[in-house]
């Protein structure tokens, strides 16, 4: 993350995404308890809806940003060697971006196919 995003911005991102993650998680768990999809088609249909699709994409993006700020904080605290930190941050970023792309692909396919 750029130097600009490092202080206040990262702190705000972490808190705002936390709220969205909390709200969406409560909805998701609630929906799964009260009205869980019973088969693949229903499951796919649920996530193919435009509101749910966008809400889930937002959720994935929030988790991505939240995790990035959190893991970066831990690495800043405990990994002082610059090259080690760059490697660690790169690995984390790669995994997070891969997760986000995979989730996006699944959501897009649910709407297309």
């Amino acid at each position: 993350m750029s130097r600009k995003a490092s202080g206040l911005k990262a702190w705000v991102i972490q808190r705002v995404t936390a709220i969205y993650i909390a709200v969406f998680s409560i909805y998701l768990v609630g929906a799964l308890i009260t009205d869980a999809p019973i088969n693949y088609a229903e499951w796919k249909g649920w996530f193919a809806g435009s509101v749910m699709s966008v809400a889930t994409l937002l959720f994935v993006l929030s988790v991505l940003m939240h995790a990035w700020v959190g893991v970066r904080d831990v690495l800043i605290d405990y990994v002082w060697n610059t090259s080690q930190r760059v490697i660690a941050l790169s690995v984390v970023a790669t995994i997070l971006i891969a997760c986000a792309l995979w989730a996006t692909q699944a959501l897009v396919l649910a709407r297309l196919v």
Partner: protein
Amino acid sequence: MKFRISRYNPDVDSEPYMQEFDIEVSRGMMLRDALLEVKRQDETFNFRHSCGEGVCGSDGVNVNGTNKLACITAIADLKEPVEVRPFPGRPIIRDLVVDMSQFYQQYKAVDPWLVREDPMPEQEILQSPEDRDKLDGLYECIMCGCCSTSCPSFWWNPEKFHGPQALLSAWRFLADSRDQATDERLDKLEGPYKLFRCHTIMNCVEVCPKGLNPTQAIGNIKNLMLKKAI
């Protein structure tokens, strides 16, 4: 009563070790009195102290794992054996005496003085009683160092993170209606280290012998930053 005191003399010892002392305690005895008794038994023992009543902030030590001021810590409240160590995370100069240079550098870095843009008035700068009240819980800091040296974030990054003491002082001047350098002060605190290494662990609040709340002050700084940013 059994005391286990951390000893270290850089000229002789390769690392600190614990030495046992048996101290006869009396009613109303404070830890500082016990340490003075240790010094009577072994005059090579060293620790900092001065006023003896929790005002000067000299005799901060780690007692049974918690940072305290020895002079206002009653022996009667301590579990035996009483383990006394120097502040954690600071370079030891000798026995319980530690090097607090970084702590003072961090304090200096927040410009702990009033900054005025307006010309100075002939006499004092007036302040309403309400504005003066905002400084309560901030100006009382005696800089003993109990908070900053109990803060893990300060242990990991003492040269970059200001630490709870300096940040409490930063808020003391941000909250002062007479100060006119709010933006400059906030700009200086931006970045991932100086302010934002605080993860609200709150060790500082727990150990402050003056009952101050650096975590609250840090939260106030973040909120003011946010308010000024949007």
